[in-house]
């Protein structure tokens, strides 16, 4: 008997809950030799801003214990070139595509959402609110419930597609932010973005990243991510997408049991570029072997 692996995020039905995380999967094409992109739940592309950004000076990445720090600095081609150069290729790959957007101001977010709304072949918008609000002295949108709600409203109004708000874990109480964006009209919440970290090269006496600080990702942060997914899924009614250190099928199941409707694979794509496709197959087999009829049975089934 066939297992139903599909899950729903708002009106959007995904073939399965396995997505790839923004910034870790390029624009998809790099992974063509290793993954059938059309078999994934969705791919999330690298964050897009209104204008092209060169990103930070090198070094941009450094390994840490079971993790890595990155300070890419949101390098991207800008929304116009993304639409004209990248989208046609992505459409040809047959993947469900989520476009991750980032801005320095509410107007940035509004314009990005509006521009992308006219573009064919986009399944959903994911809003990165870990970015600093330049008008508010650089405080990240994602650390203030009122600011997070405003961004959500602005994007939800400008977009006819599902709007996923991606939360920063660098906050005291993640449920406060989650409730704020739910109230402001988010279709779903994805979490976590990276934890802020740092490393120093003791030989040179300089930070290992030119940017001084960077984002910590990978298996090291999984326990923190799982805890936040559990807290948020227990708090809001909209779907939650789990992200953070997911590397194995067991990790996928843990996040779904904690309340995630879908998951995103990030750093693990660097370790094994075929992992996302393998997890799709593995999840189907697991559901079958464990006598479940649908992936949705896993969501939030942790016994407390």
């Amino acid at each position: 008997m066939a297992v139903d692996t599909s899950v729903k995020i708002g009106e959007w039905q995904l073939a399965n809950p396995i997505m790839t995380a923004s910034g870790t999967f390029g624009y998809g094409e790099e992974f063509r030799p290793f993954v059938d992109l059309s078999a994934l739940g969705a791919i999330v592309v690298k964050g897009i801003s209104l204008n092209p950004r060169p990103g930070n000076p090198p070094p941009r990445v450094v390994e840490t214990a079971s993790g890595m720090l990155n300070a890419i600095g949101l390098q991207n081609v800008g929304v116009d070139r993304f639409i004209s150069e990248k989208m046609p290729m992505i459409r040809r790959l047959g993947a469900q595509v989520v476009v991750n957007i980032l801005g320095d101001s509410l107007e940035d977010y509004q314009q990005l959402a509006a521009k992308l709304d006219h573009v064919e072949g986009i399944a959903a918008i994911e809003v990165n609110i870990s970015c600093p609000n330049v008008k508010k002295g650089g405080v990240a949108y994602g650390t203030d419930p009122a600011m997070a709600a405003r961004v959500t409203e602005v994007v939800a109004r400008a977009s006819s597609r599902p709007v996923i708000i991606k939360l920063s874990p660098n906050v005291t109480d993640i449920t406060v932010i989650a409730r704020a964006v739910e109230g402001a009209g988010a279709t779903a919440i994805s979490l976590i973005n990276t934890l802020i970290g740092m490393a120093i090269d003791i030989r040179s006496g300089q930070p290992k990243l030119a940017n001084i600080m960077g984002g910590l990702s990978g298996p090291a942060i999984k326990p923190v991510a799982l805890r936040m997914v559990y807290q948020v899924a227990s708090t809001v009614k909209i779907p939650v997408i789990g992200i953070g250190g997911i590397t194995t099928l067991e990790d996928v199941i843990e996040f779904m049991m904690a309340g995630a409707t879908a998951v995103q694979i990030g750093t693990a794509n660097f370790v094994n570029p075929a992992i996302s496709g393998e997890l799709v197959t593995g999840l189907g087999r697991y559901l079958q072997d464990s006598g479940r009829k649908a992936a949705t049975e896993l969501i939030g089934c942790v016994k407390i």
Partner: protein
Amino acid sequence: MGISVELQYLETGQVLENALVGPDTCRMEIRSPKITAAAQPGQFVMVSVAHDSTDPLLRRPLSIHLADNGVLTLLYRMVGKGTRLMSQMKKGDEISLLGPLGRGFQIHDAAHHCLVGGGLGVAPLLFLGTEIKRRRPEERLTILLGGRSRNELLALDDFQKIAPVHLATDDGSSGLHGLVTDLLGQEIEGPATIYTCGPTPMMKGVASLARQRTWPCQVSLETMMACGMGACLGCTVQRPGFDETEKKYVHVCKDGPVFEAAEIWR
């Protein structure tokens, strides 16, 4: 720029040999037919160093030292825990490789091809020399190698089999007492096409000499890499002269690791 991703593989190779060949330096032969068949000189592989462990987490980039008859050879220095773990692998062990990656050396026709290597930088040059000799047997090939001392001149026998080799050591224990850059100035007279890999100061010296003489010069760069395949945007090198635009940076794993020296350094 831009390379075809169609010829990239995730392949589980089998270690055929793994032995110490110099101070802190090992040479590993791996049966890996798909990657070997597709490999071009100057390309690299991302090697998985940990089994059943998330530390070290990321794959390690290593140049293709040789690719012949289904067998891929790597030459690597033990500098940290990843390469130390590699050095413990034994004949028969499995090792996951991703590759071949990046844009390698461009072998155009030239009256005189000159390879200039320093330290571990000789790793990709053996494959390059072998291919130049195979593809362009009638063109002249000279190899200049440098190292701190005699026993740090790696793969010397292999190089000597394919072309005349000139040596330079910092301590004078073999060949010229001095830098491989000095060797380049002294030994190569007529116009030559330069291919270089080694420590950055050495390559900058080589590139500047080549620029003075208006010789073409390709350099092979290293940076920290997370993915090796263009997905993370982590492996940037800054290009002087391009400010505040996207062109300010190149990505070593996709745009390189081999670049025309003029693309990178002015």
